[in-house]
């Protein structure tokens, strides 16, 4: 005999109905929603990759940061994996290095191109870089394998380091050649365009200024600093919004806008050789990934990267098309 008066029982029944309705509703979220990756073509592996064992039953998620070079490298990886028969989840264009790194640490992404210098200082927290690219790579590879079960394949000769670029006219006016010459410029003209990540990293803006005898707030007033998105800095530097623009040395717009890159005599910046990085799980399961990526990595160097970046940033082509054409030209894809 239910002691609950009849009206309360209907209330209870109504509440459970509502609750279960919401739960069901929540579960049907996101069906059929892909990611921002969009389309990527595929072909047949050729040339040095012809004998790579197929990856037909593999599902691999490829991630990349959100600036042009990383997009191209990301699409190269996607096309290679698809051509090798793998099912690919396209997570290219992740905003920010650490998020991309975190996505791989959490296993949401299995393959990324990463820079040895960034890993050594930004992720592993070391303060002084190793001045030789192979030694730097080995140090990063060993630590990452031991601590984070990440496998660094052989790095490419390409070294995409941070630096500052100036307009040719500004360079001539103050005879600027190296980062040390910034001190020669009057305080008022020490204007910088940086993106938020660089402004805060340990291999970033403030430590670099200190390395070259400058200090943010005093010798370089805070209001001289403009934070912009990575890509926007080139145009800003070119139209004089700031005299010094933080650049990636392999960006295509440096050549196109005839900007002058200042050298790093004190070797403040570490070496940033790019290398394919795989989670140990996926690598153990498909060791042939090593043969798939390493030949391609060797074929990438600064000159090649600058050309590819320019095609996207200057000519406005889609990174996936640029990557595809390059792979065909090099014969990796037939």
């Amino acid at each position, binding site marked *: 005999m239910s002691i609950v008066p009849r009206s309360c029982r209907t209330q209870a029944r109504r509440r459970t109905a509502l609750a279960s*309705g*919401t739960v069901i509703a929540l579960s049907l*979220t*996101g069906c059929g*929603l892909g990611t*921002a990756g*969009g389309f990527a073509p595929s072909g047949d592996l050729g040339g040095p990759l012809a004998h790579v064992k197929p990856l037909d039953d593999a599902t691999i998620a490829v991630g990349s940061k959100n600036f042009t070079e990383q997009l191209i490298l990301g699409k190269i990886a996607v096309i290679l994996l698809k051509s090798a028969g793998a099912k690919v989840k396209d*997570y290219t264009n992740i905003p920010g290095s650490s998020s991309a790194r975190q996505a791989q640490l959490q296993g949401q992404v299995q393959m990324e191109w990463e820079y040895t210098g960034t890993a050594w200082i930004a992720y592993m927290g070391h303060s002084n870089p190793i001045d030789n690219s192979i030694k730097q790579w080995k140090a990063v590879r060993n630590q990452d394998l031991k601590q984070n079960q990440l496998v660094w394949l052989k790095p490419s000769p390409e070294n995409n380091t941070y630096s500052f670029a100036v307009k040719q006219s500004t360079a001539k006016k103050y005879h600027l050649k190296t980062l040390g010459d910034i001190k020669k410029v009057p305080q008022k003209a020490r204007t910088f365009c940086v993106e938020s990540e660089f402004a805060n990293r340990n291999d970033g803006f403030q430590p670099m200024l200190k390395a070259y005898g400058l200090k943010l707030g005093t010798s370089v007033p805070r209001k001289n600093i403009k934070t912009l998105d990575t*890509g926007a800095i080139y145009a800003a530097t070119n139209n004089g919004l700031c005299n010094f623009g933080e650049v990636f040395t392999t960006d295509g717009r440096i050549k196109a806008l005839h900007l002058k890159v200042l050298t790093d005599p004190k070797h403040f910046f570490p070496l940033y050789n790019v290398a394919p990085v795989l989670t140990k799980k996926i690598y153990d399961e498909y060791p042939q990934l090593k043969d798939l990526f390493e030949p391609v990595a060797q074929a990438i160097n600064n000159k090649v990267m600058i050309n590819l970046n320019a095609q996207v940033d200057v000519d*406005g082509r889609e990174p996936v098309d640029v990557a595809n054409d390059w792979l065909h030209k090099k014969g990796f894809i037939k």
Partner: protein
Amino acid sequence: MWQFIRDRWQDIAYSSYQHVSLVVQSIILATIIAIAIAVLVTSYRRLEPIANAISAVGLTIPSFALLGLLLPLLGIGAAPSVVLVVFYATLPILRNAVVGLQGVDRDLIESARGMGMGPATTFFRVRLPLAWPVTLAGLRVSTQMSMGVAAIAAYALGPGLGPYIFTGLTQIGGANALNYTLVGTVGIIILALILDAILLLIGRLTTSRGIRV
């Protein structure tokens, strides 16, 4: 500009479909949640001020900040995007659903119950249909807003036309920066207007002739 679109029409179509799909699914979810909460709020008087306060505070949280908070919890991709859009889509619908349900004439409900309609039947056959026109108005406002909010989902790699805008941002100064941004922005506006027209049509079909204003 047209060359730009012709080259990428396949990807634009795919992203547009994804954008609409994200918003529509989120709107459906938001409607169910909003109506469920509205029912609770209208049946328990004292909940109402709390609901109003929450929706007032809710709206003040900037969408960009909320996305930031969702990233660590839900990772990247579709999940944070859906939650983001659903959160903002629910508020206008909830407000209108509450107004709609309160607007239903007390006598009608009493005569419905007096005729032997159980609470659930009364809700689905009397209270909901009568509150529907007002709720639908909230749905339209919410859809328009969600189409805009969904663009930010691109920052978490969510589906839709958002990535076009962010690509335009990263390539400022490049040849196609303007094209990317225009396709992203104008595309979303056009899709929003189409969705609005569809909702108007749905409204006409689902509102009974007796109460169509």
